[in-house]
């Protein structure tokens, strides 16, 4: 109730100010506001509707510094970079450290494959590419004002300290550039940021700080990952035994330990099998693995079942058994996206259909003119595969054969006999998205912008692709079509309590969870067909044989007795 009221009582002045800034009419904004007020829980085009703005509690004690006592943080501040300057006046090396983080660079060179990865470059299976659409996408860049390729990555003032360190829950980010009318609904009235208050309330990140981007990857709550969504802001024990708000209440950084603003747990280069296990107390700052706390023989060594389970850790990732299903916090995850149907209009206007109601009662869009059709799922059994930690990306310059089935945009490497891979759970996303039909490559689309070329405005794939490719000097044949793609997201959050972990028979049975993984023997799942047939014949034959023999004994013996009697 409290949250709802807050939205409704947004000052009218603010609405006008917002309208003025956006250059849209009062009428439109009033309509927008009305929609937002009546469907406040609706996860809509404004993909980060955060109704619960209370910060989560971090229980790691009082900091040695009370930031409200620092003169430099008293302000007044006009905008973010001024706050950053104040932060860096004490934390003199933080900027240098942070600029090495992927949160800043959006770029990662895989040391083993040499591939240049990172959001700055990658194709994805959701809105397909951040590149060229930074005005929208870089809302999740931990910096201020990245809207095109002219962004200054060397200016420390551009770092956004607050998105991660605000502990009031009131800080927010908006798109760095304006979109078309089709996107105007995004700019719902919000309280202006009280820079000084926020600056004085900084602390170590809570789940909602990381979550403000990572919960909403792919364009909405839970869309991308399946194991990361807003339900993890204050989860119960069943949803996540570690983040359980009433229990262990882990922050993200409890596991994703940092060293000079670099976080453990990269998904560009996953540690799929940690054989080192426990370090000395406080020693390991390099991994976010389960083993780094639980060791590599985590089950009871004094019980047979525990010993047998410890015998699994060489081939089975912890997550495979301990995350029985994903998207189980009442928020759905997207499993299918079909771009082919995008661009339909009603009376010349874009529209939405919301035919999916998720566990927490919110309605999710199943069609949007700007994006196409969607399908969602909840309590979803993950996809399982052998994983050695290497993701293999289809980048903008990767050529593929569209006739050989879905293109794996971020496939993963591993096999049952390479000695390092383990069976991991993944969320698999299926998408039908545009590609360059002539060159057999993926495409960059120009989606976002207030220009006539942006798809989110003109609904013209041909033009959006042509401009998206040209802006980045990527060769384009001029012909596009649609191709099926898969993307895979290793699952590691929403760890259930031990008692909810998978039972043996989930895999050790016919038609079990690992039915699709072939080429190795699982007791209870596999058998030797001919051996079984021979075995049945031997035992069945023996049974029939002895029964027949017994019958003969009875019949002939009776005859003999009768004969001897007579």
């Amino acid at each position, binding site marked *: 109730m409290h949250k709802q009221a807050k939205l409704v009582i947004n000052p009218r002045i603010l609405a006008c100010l917002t309208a003025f800034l956006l250059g849209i009419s009062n009428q439109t904004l009033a309509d927008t506001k009305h929609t937002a007020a009546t469907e406040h829980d609706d996860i809509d085009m404004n993909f980060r509707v955060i109704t619960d703005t209370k910060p989560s509690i971090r229980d790691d004690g009082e900091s040695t510094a009370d930031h409200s006592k620092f003169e430099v943080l008293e302000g007044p501040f006009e905008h973010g970079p001024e706050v950053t300057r104040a932060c860096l006046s004490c934390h003199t090396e933080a900027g240098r450290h942070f600029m090495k983080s992927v949160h800043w660079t959006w770029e990662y060179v895989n040391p083993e494959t040499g591939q240049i990865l990172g959001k700055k470059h990658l194709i994805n299976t959701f809105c397909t590419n951040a590149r060229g659409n930074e005005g929208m996408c870089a809302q999740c860049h931990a910096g201020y004002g990245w809207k095109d390729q002219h962004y200054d990555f060397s200016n420390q003032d551009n770092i956004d300290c607050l998105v991660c360190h605000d502990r009031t829950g009131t800080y927010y980010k908006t798109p760095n550039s304006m979109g078309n009318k089709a996107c105007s609904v995004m700019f719902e009235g919000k309280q202006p940021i009280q820079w000084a208050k926020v600056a004085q309330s900084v602390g170590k990140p809570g789940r909602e700080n990381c979550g403000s981007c990572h919960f909403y990857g792919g364009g909405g709550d839970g869309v991308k990952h399946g194991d990361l969504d807003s339900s993890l802001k204050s989860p119960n024990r069943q949803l996540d035994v570690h983040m359980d708000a009433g229990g262990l209440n882990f922050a993200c950084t409890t596991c994703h330990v940092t060293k000079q603003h670099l976080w453990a747990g990269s998904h560009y280069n996953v540690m799929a099998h940690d054989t080192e296990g426990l370090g000395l107390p406080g020693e390991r700052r390099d991994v976010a693995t389960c083993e780094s706390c639980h060791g590599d023989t985590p089950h009871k060594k004094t019980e047979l079942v525990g010993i047998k389970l410890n015998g699994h850790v060489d081939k089975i990732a912890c997550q495979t058994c301990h995350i029985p299903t994903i998207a189980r916090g009442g928020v759905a995850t997207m499993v299918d996206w079909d771009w082919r149907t995008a661009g339909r209009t009603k009376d010349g206007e874009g529209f939405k259909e919301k035919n999916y109601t998720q566990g927490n009662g919110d309605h999710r869009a199943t069609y949007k003119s700007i994006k196409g059709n969607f399908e969602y799922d909840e309590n979803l059994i993950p996809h399982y595969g052998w994983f050695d930690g290497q993701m293999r990306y289809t980048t903008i310059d990767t050529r593929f054969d569209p006739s050989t089935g879905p293109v794996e945009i971020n496939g993963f490497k591993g096999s049952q*006999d390479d000695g390092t891979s383990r069976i991991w759970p993944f969320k698999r996303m299926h998408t039908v998205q545009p590609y360059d039909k002539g060159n057999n490559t993926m495409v960059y689309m120009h989606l976002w912008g207030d220009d006539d070329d942006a798809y989110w405005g003109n609904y013209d794939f041909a033009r959006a692709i042509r401009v998206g490719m040209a802006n980045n000097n990527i060769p384009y044949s001029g012909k596009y079509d649609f191709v099926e793609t898969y993307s895979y997201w290793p699952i590691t959050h929403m760890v259930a309590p031990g008692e909810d972990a998978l*039972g*043996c028979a989930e895999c*050790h049975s016919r038609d079990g969870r690992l039915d699709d993984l072939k080429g190795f023997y699982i*007791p209870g799942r596999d058998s030797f067909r001919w*051996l079984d047939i021979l075995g049945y014949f031997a035992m069945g034959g023996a049974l029939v*044989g002895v029964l027949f023999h*017994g019958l003969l004994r009875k019949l002939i013996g009776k005859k003999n007795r009768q004969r001897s009697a007579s």
Partner: protein
Amino acid sequence: MSSNTSSVTNASIKRRGEKHYVMLYTRYERFWHWSQALLIFTLFYTGLGLHGLHDWLDFSTAVVVHSYAALALILLWIFTTFWNFTTGQWRQYLFKEGVMKVIRFYAYGILVGEPHPYKKGLQRKQNALQSLAYMSFMLLIGPTLWASGIIYLLYDLWSGYSWSGLGLTLIAFAHTAAAYLMGTFVIIHVYMTTTGKTPTHYIKTMITGYDNIELTEAEVAYIEETHAVSMKD
């Protein structure tokens, strides 16, 4: 010498070839037999479940029961091997002449009321076919099962090798194959227990340990003298 003379003149002594109720299967043999039977049934039942042929027992419980029963059986076999060699009973399992005669008897003779071609004796507890069957049980089926089972139980020691996947497959194959042979053995074995004088005669024998067998005078004399074997009459 005097005792010998007295025993010959003893009126209670039957003549050569007469039958006596003697303890043929000692207490340890019977303990071995019946505990082994119980363990094998347990292993077979849980094993079929683990193989995916029934799910009347939770997989985890089946694993625990199967593992402990296997360990118990291996322990029993270690004791029994020791017992077999210290008591010399291992000779019972050596190959004997006349296997074909016994096979002929069960295939034909038994139906027409012929006598069993093999006379049970104090030192000849098993007929030739039995010896052959038990020998293959103890040297082929049993060892295949416990060897593959132990290797499987110790999976953690070799799971790191690149051949561990193939290794597990081969182990599973050997274990399953031997289990089917064991099942076949048990079915025939149980049936054969009904082929005595009465259908339950052999089973009673295996429970009480006593059977009515022909003894030589010397055997009788020896038993009378030493009481080495319990005799009821």
